């Protein structure tokens, strides 16, 4: 099994999902000391690559937009992947005459250290961008986890509604900065009030803070399904029997279980020898 990147986003190729990618990069920058100017370069280049998938990877339809982010000392690698229209024999060349073509690729080339184009296994396009980012600290290494999240992790996402997001992330340091940002964006998308948007962030904070001991393997995977005024979070893979404990662990004496109080409900399911904790968040205040 291939090694998992520090962050893997699995999204639909919808225009609004590019914001999730951008916020993920901002969160990563925050936690590893990426310089603001470098972050602008990375965000701009990655946005171009994502927009390309949004607009052109699936002519007349939709499909997955996958983004991997990997951090190592002094560099950042971002892969933007789709399973749609391939770039055929052109990779890794570049259009000779950008004036006749577009400016997306030249922008990526101008802002990244290296860029490679490849065909996604099974069809589609993969744009791999490396950025030289001198200020960036390395992260503790992460390993692939058998039986947990991994290749083919996209399976089952189709069963969700049209608006979902999945993030697979390690280590906790990154999750702490990235997951609350993602939930803020998704809560806003679910038409939550600012009260509940903030609550979603508080819930993300609690989840990340208490989950590390309960995760089966290295990476936490969070799948969020977005419906109007309704977010459903699936957190896994959890060590069997630890899901309820996670809710209790989030208890701060004197205040009770933070997760339980912020969420409108929770449940536990078991599959493939691990547990998944499901949390629902609603915004009831404005149902008028």
């Amino acid at each position, binding site marked *: 099994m291939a090694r998992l990147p520090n962050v893997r986003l699995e999204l639909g190729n919808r225009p609004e999902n590019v*914001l999730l990618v951008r*916020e993920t990069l*901002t969160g990563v920058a925050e936690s590893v000391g990426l*310089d*603001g*100017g470098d*972050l*602008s*370069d990375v965000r*701009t280049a990655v*946005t*171009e690559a994502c*927009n*390309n998938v949004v*607009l*052109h*990877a699936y*002519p007349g339809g939709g499909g997955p937009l996958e983004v991997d982010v990997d951090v190592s000392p002094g560099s950042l690698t971002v892969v933007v992947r789709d399973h749609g*229209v391939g*770039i*055929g024999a052109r990779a890794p060349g570049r*259009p*000779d*005459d*950008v*004036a*006749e*073509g*577009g*400016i*997306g690729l*030249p*922008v990526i080339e*101008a*802002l990244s250290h290296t860029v490679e*184009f490849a065909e996604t296994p099974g069809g589609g*396009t993969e744009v791999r961008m490396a950025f030289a980012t001198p200020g960036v600290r390395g992260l503790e290494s992460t390993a692939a986890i058998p039986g947990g999240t991994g290749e083919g992790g996209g399976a089952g996402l189709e069963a969700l509604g049209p608006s979902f997001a999945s993030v697979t992330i390690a280590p906790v340091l990154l999750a702490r900065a990235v997951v609350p940002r993602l939930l*803020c*964006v998704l809560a*806003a998308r679910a038409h*939550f*009030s*600012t*009260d*509940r948007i*903030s*609550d979603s*962030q*508080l819930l993300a*904070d*609690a989840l990340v803070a208490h989950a590390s001991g309960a995760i089966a393997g290295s990476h936490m995977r969070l799948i969020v399904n977005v419906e109007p005024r309704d977010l459903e979070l699936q957190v896994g893979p959890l060590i069997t029997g630890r899901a309820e404990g996670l809710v209790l662990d989030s208890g*701060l*004496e*004197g*205040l*009770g279980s*933070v997760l339980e*109080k912020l969420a409108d409900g929770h449940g536990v399911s078991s599959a493939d020898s691990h547990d998944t904790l499901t949390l629902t968040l609603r915004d009831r*205040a*404005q149902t008028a």
Partner: protein
Amino acid sequence: MCSTEQRTEEMVIASVATAKPKSRALPPTNDDSAELFARWQEERDDAAREQLLQRFMPLARSLARRYDRSSEPYEDLVQVASLGLLKALDRFDASRGPSFASFAIPNILGEVRRYFRDSGWSLHVPRGDKERALKVRDAQEAFANEHGHAPTANQLAQYLELEVEQVIDALLAIQAYESLSLDAPRPGAEEEAITYGDSVGKEDERYELIELDATVVAVLDQIPPREREILRMRFVEGLTQTQIAARVGVSQMQVSRLLRGSLDQLRALTQDREAGH
């Protein structure tokens, strides 16, 4: 099968079309341009240079707009980008290299990037961002006072004539700002608190903390009284952040920030206690 070139071409057209309905594709570097380049570079014909500048300005504008959806004023960036374009016009060697555009793009971007870094943008929160965040905060409060509940990001966007994305950015950014400008109760906050407090209910006497015992008090006691009170209102009384904001006389954004901070602090203290003794 669609080639990369086609895909990116459509991409440019589509994104230009969304942002500026009038302009279409990028200008081609055709024979006509080659002739203009010859007139400018060999004969120093200013009219030719001017024509080239006009021809490639959409490219400069497009790049200015693309660079990190900048919070710098767009017009300033266009200026910087056009400076990059001028330099590229002067340096371009038409006899070598592929097209002018592929030569110009990194040059123009280079100018924009330099401008960002030189203006200290990477070190400070841009003023525009901060002002926007404060506007979002005030609009949140005004809306809550008028409607009795907090607005959604869409409602704020509509109210402030911003994009939803900008509102979300502001909501995220506001937490990073130092308390300086946010912490102080603003004039009028107290009167608002009273009107709002009425709809909330006035029974704020005593709520027992759950399972209060000696060790607990030790941890919770290390949180400043106001933060402790806010935690209690949210997690024991079950008030919304907007209700708490009205009672305490700060903005909901500030309540959000204080809650995040003190929950973090509580977790760290609890962890220390468990690890320590």
